[in-house]
């Protein structure tokens, strides 16, 4: 039940792009075509989940026992950068087809603030899913990271679908490109507001 609440909350209620404003730059950057949006979503999903697990373990078993919490930001970003590199190398060797699909998006992910954002949120913010508020344990953190990145994918794919439609329309000159994209996201975010309060 608790995992179910985490999943609903992370995908719909607190959608990472539409409610928490994380990962907006790549969201706008690669969402003009449905196929690239799908590829990016897959890569982000993979990296967010992996990075959250690794940084969670690093924080719980290294930083906190040593009293080095102030090194969180710097160590997390290094871990994420290293992970992205590693995933790239491993994918290239083991699964060339997946690498061809995700490859070009991987280097971009290091500076996707959704990854660092989720990693920091998981170790610092108390959550209450049905029960008493508490810091997440590893299982909850993993489910939260996976669900959050699915929410990222959902928002991105929905938005890419809309942008493909928009591209063929006659948009006023000053609205062309990003302005109309922002306004579209705004309306989408309004629709997602309807989910608030269900968890």
């Amino acid at each position, binding site marked *: 039940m608790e995992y179910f609440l985490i999943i609903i909350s992370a995908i719909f209620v607190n959608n990472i792009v539409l409610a928490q404003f994380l990962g907006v730059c790549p969201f706008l950057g690669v969402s003009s075509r449905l196929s690239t949006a799908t590829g990016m979503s897959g890569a982000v999903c993979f990296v967010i989940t992996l990075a959250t697990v690794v940084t969670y373990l690093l924080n719980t078993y290294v930083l906190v026992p040593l009293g080095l919490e*102030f*090194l969180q930001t*710097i160590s997390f970003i290094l871990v994420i950068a290293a992970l992205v590199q590693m995933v790239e190398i491993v994918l290239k060797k083991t699964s060339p087809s997946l690498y061809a699909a995700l490859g070009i998006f991987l280097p971009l992910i290091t500076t996707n603030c959704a990854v660092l954002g989720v990693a920091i949120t998981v170790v610092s*913010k*108390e*959550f*209450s899913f*049905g029960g*008493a*508020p508490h810091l997440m344990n590893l299982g909850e953190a993993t489910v939260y990271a996976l669900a959050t990145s699915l929410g990222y994918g959902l928002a991105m794919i929905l938005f890419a679908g809309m942008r493909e439609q928009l591209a063929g329309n006659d948009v006023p000159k000053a609205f062309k490109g990003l302005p109309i994209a922002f306004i579209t996201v705004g309306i989408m975010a309004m629709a997602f507001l309807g989910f*608030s*309060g269900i968890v």
Partner: protein
Amino acid sequence: MAAKSTLINMAACLTGVCLVCSAILGGTYAVTKAPIEEASRKALLEALSVVLPAEGEVNPEAQTVEVDGKSYEYYVQMRDTAAVCWAVKSTVSGFGGPLTLLVGVEPGGVVHATRVLSHSETPGLGAKCETDAKFIDQFKGFDTSSRTLKVRKDGGDVDAITASTITSRAYAEAVACAVQAVAKIQEEQQ
């Protein structure tokens, strides 16, 4: 312009940069450690002064009490040798996430005052629980022996914030939990 990349100078450069940076961070941490502790102590004392009566001595060391498996941190205000008020930190689930209050409770279950320590409620709606004087002031002197800590919709005596019933309900619940915790503290002392 940039130096040539060989394995040795890449490793040396990264190690050097990391060493210098961690030295800078360690230094800053050492310098700011005392002010950070001071700042959080000041914030706590400020919150305590809001929810506790002015006279008497407050012990700024937190103690804990457990009620129904949930543990609460609390601070005692002493006058001479008797405890006159308790400030209990009470956390419940609000609309957008955890809602943490500091609640001052006098003996006999009378609420002295409340204060929001942290919340993640909707700006402009539930977030008003931190600023809406009319809502906050109704808890001052709230006597739980004659009135019920529930919103009117649920048959209690708390006026909810307009359009924010869930936040108001959570707020009342947090205060009720604190009152229960104080009852337990008093029970344990007898």
